[in-house]
């Protein structure tokens, strides 16, 4: 199982029946493949839909139905379409139960930076600032390090996405929960030691005496 699949399988367990969920593009979107049986969730597209579905067949696209990346997609029966103001009313009003987003950096306060690398990459924040500030729970899905360098830091060096603390970090090494006291290691990936997590992290970690192995969706 590759690192991204492991992360997606772990996060899939965080989705509860009936949840309204917003997934970022890339790794976060992989979570849809591992939904446990009996868990029916609504996927929101911030560009104006609840009820995202994959296309059943190429050639059946509709040019009026795209995802936030501009790819043409499908919709489930019972979907609902709306404008951008309503879509972000859902997000900012706390009606979205969970968002899963990628991360460039997370720091000891649980603050996320994921929208800009000044001088290099200026994509814009899109809906990220709204999602991190407004959703009930925010999970960051990311590879633990980038080119060998830790992405979990004492303090973010990149511009923050929000002043709001995220709920959970899931990497291929561990599940880490930001708390009032700092970053607590909650689960370890199969075969990973706590020393490996500490070595790959630049932030102080709270290490409970017993850390369970990461559970994964089938």
């Amino acid at each position, binding site marked *: 199982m590759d690192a991204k699949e492991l992360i997606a399988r772990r996060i899939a367990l965080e989705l509860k029946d009936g949840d309204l969920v917003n997934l970022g593009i890339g790794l976060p979107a992989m979570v849809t493949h591992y939904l446990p049986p009996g868990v029916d969730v609504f996927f929101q597209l911030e560009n104006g839909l609840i009820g995202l579905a994959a296309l059943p067949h190429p050639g059946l696209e509709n040019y009026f139905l795209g995802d936030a990346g501009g790819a043409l997609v499908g919709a489930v029966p019972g979907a609902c379409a709306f404008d951008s103001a309503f879509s*972000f009313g859902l997000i900012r009003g706390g009606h979205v139960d969970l968002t899963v987003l990628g991360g460039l950096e997370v720091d000891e306060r649980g603050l996320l930076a994921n929208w800009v690398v000044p001088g290099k990459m200026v994509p814009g*924040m899109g809906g990220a600032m709204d999602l991190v*500030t407004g959703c009930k729970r925010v999970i960051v899905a990311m590879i633990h390090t980038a080119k060998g360098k830790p992405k979990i830091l004492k303090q973010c060096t990149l511009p923050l996405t929000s002043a709001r603390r995220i709920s959970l970090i899931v990497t291929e090494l561990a599940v880490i929960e930001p708390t009032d006291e700092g970053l607590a290691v909650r689960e370890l990936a199969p075969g990973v030691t706590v020393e490996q997590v500490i070595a790959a992290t630049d932030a102080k970690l709270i290490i409970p005496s017993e850390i369970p192995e990461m559970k994964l969706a089938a």
Partner: protein
Amino acid sequence: MHKAIGLAEAVEMIPDGASLMIGGFMGVGSPHRLIGELLRQGRKDLTVIGNDAARPGVGIGRLVDAKVVKRMVASHIGTNPEIGRQMIAGETIVELCPQGTLAERIRAGGYGLGGVLTTTGIGTVVAEGKRQIEIEGKMFLLELPLTADFALIAAHRADHIGNLEYALTSRNFNPIMAMAAATVIAEAAEIVPVGVIPPDDVVTPAVLVDHLVEREKLNGR
């Protein structure tokens, strides 16, 4: 109440240097014919307010390709490397705005509100230079309304007097832009007689649409 207008005539109303709200999200729900005609007529120095710069060759991206966007207010430009290049080269000014804030600012402009009070952006670079207002012990960022000279919007169906209906994710910024611009020009994939679109399905009422672009000729008819 005659609103039908030729495509060329509609775009002739728009001067160089105009501010345009342009509907769409990554090109889905953008007024592609109006954008094409802006290019054909060589309009330039435009201020464009829209969610994103789409991709080169797509939607607002076509205006970027032609280097006619002097200033852009958007939430996301990362999918269009050309506008990134123009920004870094100082050829274009880009004002980035969180997507939800962008939507509310446009809505506030059209609804006569004084601004938007939001927590999004607090503690980030978005808050720099902006007023913050404490309300019942919590801080909110004051974001100002947006308006424009023209809104160029795309509908799925229009009726003969200009009532508009949208389809799926092509609704996005179009309805709020139709409230926020001095002159609203709409194009529609389909045009139907009055009464075909039921009242509950009309999202943008005809009174907001100043000009409805004539349909495209198809198979010579």
